[in-house]
């Protein structure tokens, strides 16, 4: 059973990106939120900040862990999910929808090389669990 939506790409650090036109939406995967446990705080960048692909752009905290999140693609932050300030649990409840983290203006021509498809990511998670 495929649990990962195939309308987006994934990273080995468990983020996803969905690109529509020039805008990329970023979040963490269902697998990542399960590993992290109940999310209690999300620290996100300011609108206007520029990031390279692979760069840390924020942190997600559970009660006893802090997890850095990395951008799958380069871009400029155009929107952050402000509802997470009051409802950080959305990252747990709806990681692919209401629990999104930031939206980017994509600067790299939507270059998805190096990112994983849903099927490839699912395989990666399975192997990681065995490892």
């Amino acid at each position, binding site marked *: 059973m495929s649990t990962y939506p195939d309308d987006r790409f994934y990273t080995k650090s468990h983020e996803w990106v969905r690109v529509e036109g020039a805008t990329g939406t970023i979040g963490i995967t269902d697998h990542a939120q399960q590993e992290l446990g109940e999310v209690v*705080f999300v*620290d996100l960048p300011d609108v206007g900040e520029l990031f390279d692909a692979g760069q840390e752009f924020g942190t997600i*905290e*559970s*009660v*006893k*862990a*802090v997890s850095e999140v990395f951008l799958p693609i380069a871009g400029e932050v155009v929107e952050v999910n402000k509802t997470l300030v009051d409802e950080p649990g959305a990252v747990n409840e709806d990681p692919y929808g209401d629990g999104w983290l930031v939206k980017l203006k994509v600067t790299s021509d939507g270059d998805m090389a190096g990112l994983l498809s849903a099927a490839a990511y699912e395989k990666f998670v399975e192997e990681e669990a065995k490892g």
Partner: protein
Amino acid sequence: MGYIPHSPAERSALLREIGAASVDDLFSTVPRAVYRTEPPALPAPQSEIELRRGMAAMAGKNADGSRWASFLGAGLYAHHSPAFVSQLLLRGEFLTAYTPYQAEVSQGTLTAIYEFQTHVALLTGMDIANASMYEGASAFVEAVLMAERLSKKRSKVVVSKGVHPEYLTALGTYLANFPFQIVQVPLGPDGRTDAAALAAAVDETTFAVGLQSPNVVGVVEDWQAAADAAHAKGALAIGAVNEMFSLAVLKAPGHAGMDIACGEAASFGVPPSFGGPLVGFLACRDAFKRQIPGRLVGRAVDAQGHEGFCLTLSTREQHIRRERATSNICTNQGLMALAATMTLSALGKNGLRETAVQCLSKAEYFKALVKAKAGAGPCSLAFAGPTFNEFALRCAVPVDTVLSALEAKGILGGVPMARIAPREGAWKDLLLVAVTERNTREQIDRAAEVLRSIR
């Protein structure tokens, strides 16, 4: 022997169960070159009878506040500690418990910390306070480091020379390896921080301004002026307090623009104990809470809806964030924070005020004797600025001469500024005199009489 319960037979039985021939077998992976089979070069063990005798002999050589009239302060003030405080601190449930990581079996400690946080927040006029710091100097340093993290990429901290010199030394020690500049602003002739010099020292690279009130020479500072100077350039204002009773009669830092309050809360029931253990505190506005160092306790509920308390926002701390933590502090001053909480609970709103008014009134009485026509011999008031319970005398003879004369009459007369700030030449003839509710009119009269007799 000592506090080990095993009888020789029980010890043998345990070794047998493990399958070890001797205790040495258990240490088999220690390199033989360093493994010692001879006892260390220490004296024979002492029983309680011997310990009592030996330790009491050492204690007996010290001038303590129960036998001497003491006017010593300079950052640590010997106030009354209610009798029940020392006794309740001996309850094993408080004394021998660990940090309350396991909330279900630590509600006593957790509730008390929540109360400590509340007391400190109320006194300082801040939104929140942490579960305690080691003592005043490290609390001040942590406040500066916290302000730097909040500032993002600023590099200068401006501090008043009215901040306790040992706090400033500690600041230099902790900041030695960071690319930060520390700028010190002098005191003006009235004993207050020179407001113009302070404002001039603050610029766009400044992340914080640090002020202490009452300051090291006892003079009450203007929080708001320092806060305005800081905020004008986008810096944060840090207010240090080490005589917490002053906050019962003087405007709180949080009510006068300061962003972070820190310092020493030992005035509340913690004995001076030759300088420790004391109880540092750090409080701030809500907006800065994610950068506060140390532990925090929060209110929580269990699955049945019962209310309780637990440690919270722990991801700031070293056991989770390791080298990215807000501080390396782990063990803090839990039991001393409990002593302060119990004392504050007993004092309450009314006792706080009454004690503060007594301290203030007795200090003003002493100052009036110094200012009176009969005077105080070679000593005069050094500064005209308002004070709470401590003031500086300027001595026309060596400070040691003054102290010796007082000592001869059973009086610990004060702290020479040269002792805490040996490099400040301008302060070498100053003597700091602190008065608390423990001092009597007779003691003050006696001290003034000695001063008048000095030729």
